[in-house]
């Protein structure tokens, strides 16, 4: 049986300066309850890894707007004006990464790989300072793995073992982030006794804790 936790217990797993991966794509599939719990825990100076900067009042954007994030690694920040504002005030460092590269860097960390070789970003600013490796006559950029201390997952349905499946497009970065972090908390909207093994997307060894009560509409 997996450990089921309450919102107020989330503070035990977060601390100042830690790195956190947050699932979701423009907050679709982001764990809103877990994000609220992190906000209530008063931690700051966080490094956040997420597909995007969310919205000012939704998804991972709430942590950014509240000034809790000192570094953001994401592919897109255009939907949250707070990110640009904090960048101008030198209150946040933003590292923009092509979305497919970000996904593979996270997957590489979870899969125990030393990085990935991708053609994406060649001859652009993304390639600056990175090693170019030629394989079978084609040039690739070496991109290193990205791991984090904690993953906060959303959009899921769990069984009592901690296996997860996701709803619709809420899957996005959640399954790969589950593999790349020391501690993994999944926010789920529903718990069933046992998922059909054929339907399991994230197997329970990747999941450490489950918070029940996530919004179905994530």
């Amino acid at each position: 049986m997996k450990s089921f936790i309450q919102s107020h217990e989330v503070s035990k797993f977060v601390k100042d300066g830690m790195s956190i991966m947050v699932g979701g794509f423009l907050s679709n599939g982001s764990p809103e309850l877990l994000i609220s719990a992190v906000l209530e825990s008063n931690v700051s100076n966080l490094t956040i890894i997420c597909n995007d900067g969310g919205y000012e009042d939704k998804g991972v954007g709430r942590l950014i707007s509240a000034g809790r994030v000192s570094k953001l690694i994401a592919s897109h920040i255009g939907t949250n004006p707070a990110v640009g504002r904090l960048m101008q005030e030198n209150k946040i460092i933003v590292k923009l990464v092509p979305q497919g590269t970000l996904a593979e860097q996270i997957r590489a960390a979870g899969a125990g790989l030393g990085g990935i070789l991708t053609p994406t970003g060649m001859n652009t600013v993304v390639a600056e300072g990175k090693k170019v490796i030629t394989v079978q006559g084609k040039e690739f950029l070496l991109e290193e793995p990205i791991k984090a201390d904690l993953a906060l997952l959303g959009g899921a349905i769990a069984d009592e073992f901690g296996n997860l499946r996701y709803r619709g497009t809420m899957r996005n970065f959640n399954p790969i982030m589950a593999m790349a972090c020391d501690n993994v908390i999944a926010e789920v909207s529903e718990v069933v006794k046992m998922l059909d093994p054929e339907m399991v997307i994230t197997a329970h060894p990747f999941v450490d804790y489950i918070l029940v009560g996530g919004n179905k509409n994530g």
Partner: protein
Amino acid sequence: MDEKVIIAKRIALELKKGYLVNLGIGIPTMVADYISHDQEVFLQCENGIIGIGPLSECTTELVNAGGLCATILPGGSFFDSATSFSIIRGGHVDVTVLGALEVDSEGSIASWIIPGKKVPGMGGAMDLVVGAKRVIIAMTHSNKGVPKILKKCSLPLTAYKQANLIVTEMAVIEVLEDGLHLLEVNPENTIEQVVQATEAPLIINQVIPMRGIEL
């Protein structure tokens, strides 16, 4: 006709039966409105879906790459972001349509940043233009009179030499090894007007009226 509608209608003609297509945000999204049912095109969105359908009332279980609530059509599927970009980077997308700030005579594309002004980020665009079999740029021909089709891009690149076709409200331009070929011109414009609105040199052989834009 609205210039964006002209662009979207013309691009819809490029999508062949059975194609897997990724449409970017903005004008590219409008292309979906002009794809006929018998074209049997499947639309992929980088947030993890093949077979995205029309927009819907909000359930938010399913959104498109712009974060708007949508539907899934028969034959569709969901997957995670790593799989989504395997589809994109791995050459399984037949056509990607995306907007741009600038395109140049070599087919290089700038679309993700205006340094010091606007930094939205590249999202999935860098992967899409490198991985898709064919890259179609959908954009207005100029920006308040300033050309966007340049000899050389001035903004930071999204990708080097990846555009295959440029469709604007004025013209259809193909990017080949030897430069930009003017293929079609909107009958409301002359070839001279297109040349004037374009900074990059255009190779002009046989030009026909822009197809697919009749009402």
